[in-house]
């Protein structure tokens, strides 16, 4: 018993879940227990988007310092618009639309990798440059786009099992579990960790650095594409700024979840915990009747405080 508690305490992801539960408890206490279950349902549903994007960003961040995908918001905006336009509100085109969104994301990832490889620039700059062009494409492509998502897809996003458990959340949990296996049990996952710990050593040890980087950036971008399609379906259509919150959120869930921003150390469950924590935190502040400006400010302060407390990376 004590041994397993001790094991739990040493897991980097545990703190994000502890934080999520604490924030949830405070919220429930504030409303005297009303809607405790509904809050969990909402948190599970909304976290789906953060988790999908966050896991992609986690793989990118894990490949070492300077590796961050800044093109995620633009990617989400473009993929969401593509998905809605291809689906054209028809249930029969849902699969085609999802494939189109994944394809769009993949292409953005391809563009990112090409810039990193050809221009030999830090990934932050490469993905930033790419995001300018992707965002512009999204603006030009999505202008005046008013296509409602297919009813079946919207219904699927809202589908709940008895007890209020969203099906999409269960699927995302299964996806996260699969990603744990990919990270810890496959050659690709071990390569990502090895490169993050030392690019040079990994290269000398024969790890296929270029190929791993290619897979990582395209995986992250493809997941952002998927998230864009789901987000558009969930919010009744694509909008140009719907990806914007994900710049901070994708990095925040990764770091709060116990993944090292210096690379080489990743944590999948933590992404879930951090996503739930962030959503429940905003819910708590809303319940307290905090104004929107104050809410933003407190969110920022709390994120910085968590990083500062957890901080102390040996390498920058």
């Amino acid at each position, binding site marked *: 018993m004590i041994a397993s508690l001790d094991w739990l305490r040493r897991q980097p992801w545990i703190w994000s879940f502890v934080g999520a539960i604490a924030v949830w408890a405070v919220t429930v206490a504030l409303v005297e227990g009303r809607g405790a279950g509904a809050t969990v349902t909402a948190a599970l549903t909304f976290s789906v988007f953060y988790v999908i994007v966050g896991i992609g960003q986690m793989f990118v961040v894990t490949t070492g310092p300077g590796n*961050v995908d800044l093109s995620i918001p633009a990617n989400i905006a473009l993929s969401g618009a593509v998905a809605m336009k291809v689906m054209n509100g028809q249930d029969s085109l849902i699969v085609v639309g999802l494939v189109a969104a994944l394809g769009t994301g993949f292409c953005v990832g391809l563009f990112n990798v090409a810039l990193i490889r050809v221009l030999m620039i*830090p990934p932050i700059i490469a993905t930033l440059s790419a995001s300018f062009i992707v965002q512009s494409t999204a603006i030009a492509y999505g202008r005046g786009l008013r296509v409602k998502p297919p009813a079946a897809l919207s219904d699927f996003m809202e589908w709940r099992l008895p007890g209020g458990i969203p099906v999409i959340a269960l699927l995302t949990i299964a996806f996260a579990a699969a990603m744990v296996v990919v990270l810890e049990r496959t050659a690709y996952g071990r390569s990502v960790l090895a490169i993050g710990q030392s690019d040079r050593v990994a290269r000398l040890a024969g790890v296929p650095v270029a190929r791993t980087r290619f897979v990582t950036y395209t995986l992250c971008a493809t997941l952002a594409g998927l998230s864009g399609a789901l987000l558009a379906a969930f919010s009744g259509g694509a909008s140009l700024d719907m990806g914007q919150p994900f710049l901070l959120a994708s990095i*925040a869930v990764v770091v709060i979840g116990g993944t090292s921003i210096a690379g080489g150390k990743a944590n999948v469950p933590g992404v879930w915990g951090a996503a739930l924590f962030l959503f429940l935190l905003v819910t708590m502040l809303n319940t307290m009747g905090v104004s929107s400006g104050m809410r933003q400010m407190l969110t920022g*302060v709390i994120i910085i405080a968590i990083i500062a407390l957890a901080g102390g990376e040996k390498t920058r």
Partner: protein
Amino acid sequence: MSDSRPVPALPGRASLGAAAVPRLLRAILPGLALAVILVAIFILQPRAMSYFGLNLLLNLSIPIVFATLAQMFILTVGDLDLSVGGMVSFVATVSVTYLAEQPVLGVAILIGAIALYACVGALIELRRLPAIVVTLGMSFVWFGLAVLVLPSPGGRAPEWLIALMAWKPPVIPLPILAALLIAAIGHIALMTSSYGAILRGAGGNARSIARAGWSMLRVRMTLYALAGFMGVLSGLSLTGITTSADSNIALRYTLISIAGAILGGSEFVGGRVSPIGAVLGALTMTLAASFLSFLRLSPDWQIGVQGAILILVLALRALINAWSARASRRRAGTAAP
């Protein structure tokens, strides 16, 4: 960031010779990009080639130049500031409210904002935190504060500020005069002063600077305070032009400032920065935005053109680097056959 590269490449007389050519090419690249886009605009619209035309064309460049310099100071030490847009927006809201109505309080708030920037630098240094995450959190703080100061768009900038930004100096339009002045001051402060060399050295090899007895805490706080000061100037000049503000008036400044600084030759590692380049980069970014309207193209592609120019310049730089690497390999080959 974490990789400790060898000694920073400080410009010096010792390196004159064959290696100086690629360096010279790299240095003129930002100016070249600006010249090309300016010439293109002049060809499309000859009337732009006048005092009035340039004034109009570069109208919004002054706040962008300041924001880009703010970013450049952070890049100097190898960090990235994702809160520039938030900080400039906050300053803008303070400018159209407190600064206009209670100037003393307004000035105090702005000084506080600079102090907060220095504190962020201190926090990053003391706790060894990733700057990108901390400044991302700070962007929430700044935007939140901006909403608190000015919940709905409006306000009015102080009259002296509006008058200052509308000033028409003889011969040289104000945006160009300002750009020249800012570039000169930035260059003297960072590139020629002795502490400027320490600041850049800290970006190149923090450990050796610390071993030499300089406080890295002081270095980071100085650079962050300088960035904060530039952010304040950016917000003030912005409201001087727009006369009113809203809480996310400078949302896009974060990305534009990074693009401008990188375009101007700043690099992530090695403390390689250039104030003159950053000013040129910011001007290029401003012109890129208005370039489309001369081509009668949809403004939807405005951001895209900025991205394309950035990629083009980076591609040219990569080409120069590859060429100089090949040249130096060939030299090494002939020296030791």
